[in-house]
């Protein structure tokens, strides 16, 4: 068999390091298949926000600020809600479920590193978000005559930053969920309350000042504003109230992005905080006893 000194047996040759991508891709496939086949997650996390986009603009008319129809305001906000649903809510619930059933433990016993595993999970969430965004933009365009995003750069940047921040928040949040049974309820709590006070269903500027301050502590309000700026080209952070009517500031080009710097900062701070807390609080297995 030996052909000469040049060829060493394969076993003793230094093992060539495989890249991480096939393993990450395997995780994405597992997660995506699980997500779509689980009726609860497919209908609730993915379908419900889309259903709201189809229904709400038909129930409520009028303007949310001067020259801004409610439907435009709402549809832009629902992009943020869909993102939170597919990242924060979906990850927190599914990871808690996988933790309690020792699926995480099983995966940890394979060559998958934690980074590959979580990168795969976040990538899978990102795929769901992207599909939702495309559908919402299409509904907005077809049903409500809302133009495509006027400032793609700002829009995409907030989508990407939102996916990262809210995914990390979802993973860190599992550390505070005692078991899988309580996961849906504990996830709905912040998710629902923040939807109501972050300028999604109701115009932010119409809320009392104290409630605006409370909402501004949390990232959803900023994500909604950032996406609205990219989508509609209107800066709601620097608008003015004239004769009792809120007037957002039209922005274009780089100004659109820079107008949203407080939001970018808040999202980054929440993302970093989630990472730090997650590294300390995350559990791979259910609590014993």
């Amino acid at each position, binding site marked *: 068999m030996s052909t000469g000194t040049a060829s060493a047996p394969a076993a003793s040759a230094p093992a060539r390091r495989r890249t991480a991508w096939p393993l990450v891709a395997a995780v994405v496939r*597992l997660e995506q*298949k699980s997500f779509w086949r689980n009726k609860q997650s497919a209908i609730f996390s993915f379908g419900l926000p889309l259903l709201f986009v189809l229904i709400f603009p038909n129930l409520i008319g009028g303007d949310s600020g001067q020259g801004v129809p409610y439907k435009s305001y709402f549809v832009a906000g629902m992009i943020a809600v869909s993102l939170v649903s597919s990242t924060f809510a979906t990850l927190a619930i599914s990871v808690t479920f996988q933790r309690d059933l020792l*699926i995480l433990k099983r995966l*940890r*016993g394979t*060559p998958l590193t934690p980074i590959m595993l979580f990168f795969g999970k976040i990538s899978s969430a990102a795929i769901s978000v992207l599909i939702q965004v495309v559908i919402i933009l299409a509904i907005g365009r077809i049903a409500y005559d809302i133009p495509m995003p006027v400032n793609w750069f700002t829009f995409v940047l907030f989508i990407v930053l939102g996916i990262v921040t809210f995914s990390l928040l979802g993973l860190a949040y599992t550390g505070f969920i005692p078991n899988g049974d309580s996961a849906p309820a504990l996830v709905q709590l912040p998710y629902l309350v923040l939807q109501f006070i972050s300028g999604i269903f109701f115009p932010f500027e119409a809320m009392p000042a104290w409630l605006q301050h409370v909402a501004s502590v949390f990232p959803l309000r900023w994500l909604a504003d950032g996406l609205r700026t990219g989508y509609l080209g209107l800066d709601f952070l620097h608008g003015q109230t004239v004769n009792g009517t809120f007037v957002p500031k039209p922005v274009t080009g780089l100004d659109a992005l820079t107008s949203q710097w407080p939001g970018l900062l808040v999202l980054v701070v929440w993302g970093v905080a989630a990472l730090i807390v997650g590294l300390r609080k995350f559990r*791979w297995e259910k609590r014993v006893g």
Partner: protein
Amino acid sequence: MSQRTDADVAIEARALRKSYGSFEAVKGVDIAVAAGEVVGFLGPNGAGKTTTVEILEGYRPPTAGTARVLGLDPATAGRTLRERVGIVLQEAEFLPELTVRETVEAWHRFYPHPITVAEAIERVGLTGRAEIRVKNLSGGERRRLDFALGTIGRPEVLFLDEPTTGFDPSARRQAWELIRELVGEGTTVFLTTHYIEEAQALADRVAVIAGGRIVAEGSPDELRAAEGEGVISFRLPAGASLGELPDLPDAEVGDEGGLVTVTTKHVTATSHAVTGWALARGVELEGLSVHRPSLEDVYLELVARPNDTDT
């Protein structure tokens, strides 16, 4: 036995300790498993068995002492080691909505030199169930899938945690055959089990843990010989009394209505003394029997002993 070099040691624990708060679950465990060896790890619940195995599997770091698997620290070696180790967990679930084939395919992608997906499914006998969603599998079928996932990467070291719990007897035989097949390929197996019979069937060596310590170690036969006490029994010949029996060192003599029982660790020597005495007197020992303890007797005896000698 020849001197082992480090390269031949697949699994090694030295003075391993693990505390949870003030509770010390593992109190200084030493284990060495040679490459290609099958070691059965026995112990009652709460003896530190799971903790020890999980340290070796890399799921938790020890509080003190060292653990080495294939020469690497399992707590920190990560992917390099995981590619060479297979773990068959006892109660871990699967993603319920995936089929058997999809699950095995994912694991196939995790390892650098796996056997084929079809082969992995075939050898655990799930070929006919490959397209079934995992949530619809029976308990025994899930354990087979566990096996397929744990062994698809051609592991050099395989940790089996109660691998045949819930198997019917024929499935258990099949699992044993598969384990033997893997051992034949040179896989080192660390087998945690409740079934003494399983350890006896598969293991070259058995280690028994109780109270956080290894209380006995050796081949099943060695354990029976070293730890177990045999019983020699016979009817006392007419006209003879117990006092006439020869001196039997390290033996306990009892009389149950004419049936004499001699309990001893030195079964061979003692039975020789007893039968020699009978021959010399020219009498027949009616009902003579020599009972060796089973591994199960030895095990139950070992784990029942008070072994907490901390103080």
